[in-house]
């Protein structure tokens, strides 16, 4: 935990020196929210959204809350590692007497905090400016669901970072996993419009369960008990995927030590 917090403090101190980038990221979030609002005006009262309360804007906001948070879990490890490789600091991190999981946790904390700020800004825009009717209680209840979904994505992100440690560039996992999850989870359209076979395999993707639970909480006034099945499935995915991701990272580090592939970029 000490390592993770130290990495968080370091990342925060470094990112503070790039304050213009932070301002731009918030601006991008606002522009994205405005764009989403106008797209939603094109799609008013579609039949496919009959099972969900609220407008298409609310529907897609709930879906994107899950996938954008999950993307942080997916990409933060690889991005951090590539940055450490490029600046030449990776060697000393690998030499230090810390576990890869402590370092990985630290590399995740700052992007996660930043992602949370952006998500709150987007939801604030939705509720405060567009007049979205998402309940604040539902938002709070969806936090554990978001965390569990993010943990499953983080598992893939850690494995991908291990591959990047060896390949330096070209990660075969995050892009396909992120894009397929976006489609199969129904983040931006209802799952009901997918073909039957696609709906059937969509349950194999953690994001599907995350999006489903979040929409129930935010759009259909569900309570915590209503989303217990989704939470249990997500916890199962996490328990299965996270150890595999960490194992793969360790294997990649050992392979790098043997084949002189650590360091460099």
């Amino acid at each position, binding site marked *: 935990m*000490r*390592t993770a*917090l*130290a*990495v968080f*403090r*370091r990342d925060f*101190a*470094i990112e503070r*020196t*790039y304050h213009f980038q932070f301002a731009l990221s918030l601006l991008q979030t606002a522009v994205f929210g405005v764009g989403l609002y106008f797209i939603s005006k094109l799609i008013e009262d579609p039949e496919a959204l009959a099972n969900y309360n609220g407008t298409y804007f609310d529907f897609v906001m709930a879906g994107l809350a899950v996938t954008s948070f999950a993307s942080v879990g997916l990409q933060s490890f690889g991005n951090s590692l590539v940055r450490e490789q490029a*600046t*030449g*600091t990776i*060697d*000393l*991190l*690998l*030499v*230090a*007497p*810390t576990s890869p999981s402590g370092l990985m946790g630290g590399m995740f904390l700052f992007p996660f905090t930043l992602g949370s700020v952006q998500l709150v800004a987007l939801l604030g825009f939705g509720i405060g400016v567009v007049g979205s009717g998402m309940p604040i209680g539902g938002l709070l209840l969806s936090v554990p669901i978001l965390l569990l979904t993010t943990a499953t994505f983080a598992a893939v992100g850690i494995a991908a970072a291990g*591959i990047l440690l*060896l*390949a*330096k560039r*070209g990660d075969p996992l995050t892009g396909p996993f992120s894009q397929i999850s976006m489609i199969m989870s129904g983040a931006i359209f209802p799952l009901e419009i997918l073909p039957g076979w696609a709906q059937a395999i969509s349950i194999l993707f953690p994001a599907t369960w995350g999006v489903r639970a979040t929409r129930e909480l935010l759009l259909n006034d569900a309570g915590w008990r209503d989303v217990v099945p989704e939470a249990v499935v997500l916890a199962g995915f996490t328990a299965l995927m996270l150890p595999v991701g960490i194992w793969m990272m360790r294997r990649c580090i050992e*392979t790098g*030590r*043997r*084949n*002189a*592939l*650590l*360091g460099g970029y």
Partner: protein
Amino acid sequence: MLTITGVQRSYEPLTGILRVMSRGASTSTVRVLDSIDLEVRPGSILGLVGPNGAGKTTLIRIIAGLLTPDAGEVRIAGVDPVNDRHQAARVLGLVLTDDRSLYWRLSGRQNLEFHGALYGLSRRDAGARADELLEMVGLADRDRHVFGYSTGMRASLAIARALVHDPEVLVLDEPTRSLDPVASRDTCELLQSLAREGRTIMLSSHHLEELERTADDVAILLDGRIQHAGTVDSLRSEGSSAASKLEELLRADRIEDHQA
């Protein structure tokens, strides 16, 4: 004490999935280190000298545990970095080539505090240790972002960073490479004072004369083999052929560097 016994290392071309994913260090098998035996006594400095490509950095990466040897073993204060990486890291201070091991967007103090935390120091202890080390290397009143440091200041900070966990053994890869003569002399004096404290120090360099002034013992690494190892005094008398061959190669390296 730092002991290196029978260390061998070759670079093999990558095969299978690794070949698809990455470019290896070599496209054919190259023996980089061949039966390296060295011993560095506590309180002494061993200078490892050799031309470009002699295997100095490979040997240092093996000592650091960043690379596994094909054969042989390393003991850092009695600890094997292959089998007990964490304990080996606690007794080893490492300075890698150039100053790319520092976070340029952090201050010198923040760099030291971060590495202190990585080595298990509490925030308070890491802060106190950072102040102590900045004072020691003469950077206490220049605590600004590292990108504003001169090359010499960064070299000093890299040494301070290596000392953050008070290691018994210090290994430095060409710490004076980019320094002007004054900064280079200051760095060598700092290393000598650290050796007087009882630390075991090994440093690699391109500059034989510099090592003759700084080190107690010198090892000449040529073509992956130790061609001479002994006291600085014995270098000119016994190892005259190795020393003169080395000087010829180093001169060729310098001309090449200058032309580049």
